[in-house]
């Protein structure tokens, strides 16, 4: 389990990095950020990039700040930076609640938020957060930058809308209003494993009724996404068991669950219903 040979590049500026990417991407050159997903696949030789462009020494990729109503997360911001709230308010607390579910402590020291999003494992917590909260991805290439909304970004298992010469330079998550409530649930067989299914829900209340519900599901399908049917079941309803069960059932009915050797579709569907209901209960409590 030794990686295949590659050439190593360690640019120090974004321009340099994207120029190297433009040059080497056609020959399977890839970005190396935290490496916590890429290096294992290289160890199994499932990935065998010919060039690695290490962005850990690139200046100005470590931004973690609120700008224009969004939390901007640069390409080298690591999971561990969310162990304490990255910003004031609901969003900071939400991200801190979620991060403790991502793999394990040493992985979180190296792995990056943007790396997870670009890698796009369907069971990645950050991917689901980005999808649920309508994040915007900033893709940078030698020819410029492009903004990609989350709903267009995640295509299927480990496949995104990023072009091969594009670096995911930044992810922007809209700040949540102070009256937003949220609930997060995931289920896996062991602590730190990839989720078999997971969900993030948010909503606000107006006059006791649910407004702007977001119900995101990850791990269950080939990509994370908001489940419109579940959100429709919540909008305008009074929070409570009836509404939550209706939304949970709607989510379970709407998804097209993945199957693998360990987990069948029916289990993932049932589990998703449970997790959505519990996340809604958490949000309401």
């Amino acid at each position, binding site marked *: 389990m*030794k990686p295949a040979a*590659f050439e*190593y590049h360690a640019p120090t500026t974004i321009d340099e990095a994207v120029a190297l990417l433009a040059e080497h991407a056609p020959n399977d050159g890839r970005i190396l950020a935290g490496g*916590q997903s890429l290096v294992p696949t290289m160890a199994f030789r499932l990935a065998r990039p010919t060039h690695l462009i290490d962005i850990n020494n690139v200046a100005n990729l470590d931004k973690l700040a609120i700008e224009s109503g969004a939390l901007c997360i640069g390409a080298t911001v690591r999971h561990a930076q969310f162990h304490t709230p990255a910003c004031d308010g609901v969003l900071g607390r939400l991200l801190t609640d979620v991060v403790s579910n991502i793999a394990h*402590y*040493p992985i979180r020291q190296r792995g990056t938020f943007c790396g997870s999003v670009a890698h796009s494992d369907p069971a990645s917590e950050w991917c689901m957060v980005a999808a649920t909260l309508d994040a915007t991805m900033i893709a940078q290439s030698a020819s410029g930058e492009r903004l990609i909304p989350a709903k267009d970004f995640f295509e299927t298992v480990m496949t995104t809308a990023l072009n091969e010469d594009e670096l995911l330079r930044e992810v922007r998550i809209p700040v949540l209003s102070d009256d937003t409530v949220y609930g997060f649930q995931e289920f896996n067989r062991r*602590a730190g494993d990839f989720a078999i299914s997971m969900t993030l829900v948010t909503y606000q209340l107006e006059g006791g009724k649910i407004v702007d519900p977001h119900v995101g599901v990850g791990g269950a399908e080939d990509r994370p996404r908001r489940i419109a049917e579940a959100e429709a079941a919540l909008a305008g309803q009074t929070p409570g068991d009836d509404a939550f069960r209706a939304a949970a059932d709607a989510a379970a009915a709407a998804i097209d669950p993945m199957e693998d050797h360990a987990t069948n579709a029916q289990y993932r569907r049932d589990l998703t219903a449970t997790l959505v209901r519990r996340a809604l209960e958490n949000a309401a409590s």
Partner: protein
Amino acid sequence: MSDKKDITLTINGRDHNVSVDPRWTLADVIRDHCGQTGTHLGCEHGICGACTILVDDSPVRSCLMFGIQADGKKIRTVEGLANGDEYHPLQRAFIENHALQCGYCTPGFLMLATGILEAQPDISDDDLNDVLSSNLCRCTGYANIIKAVRIARDEMKAAS
């Protein structure tokens, strides 16, 4: 085959000048090219934690970094834990509480625990369990590892 590059790894305060193939993992460089074999490999895909070391004082899996990425960084491994003949409180607690059997996972657990106790000396039992669940042990059933790290935490806190 890619060209080798000269780097300097500072392991436990000692500089090792090595010429590395970029694909060599940090664990392999430390073990096979710097002679520090206390860091063990248990899975080489980042799950077991046997290869956990401190890079710039953070616990990381040394199988998931390339040696070339650690050029100039401060690396700490199990060999540097004791102060001469004096055990680190974690080492002593592991011995006194029978927190190891075969000892293969032990260096990884010791470095993981060192990293977290230095970063969070007041860490709660629950949070400590969460961190220690990062690494696998196949011999002890973990109970004595948890006990030893808690004792070392209390001792280190009292001494500071």
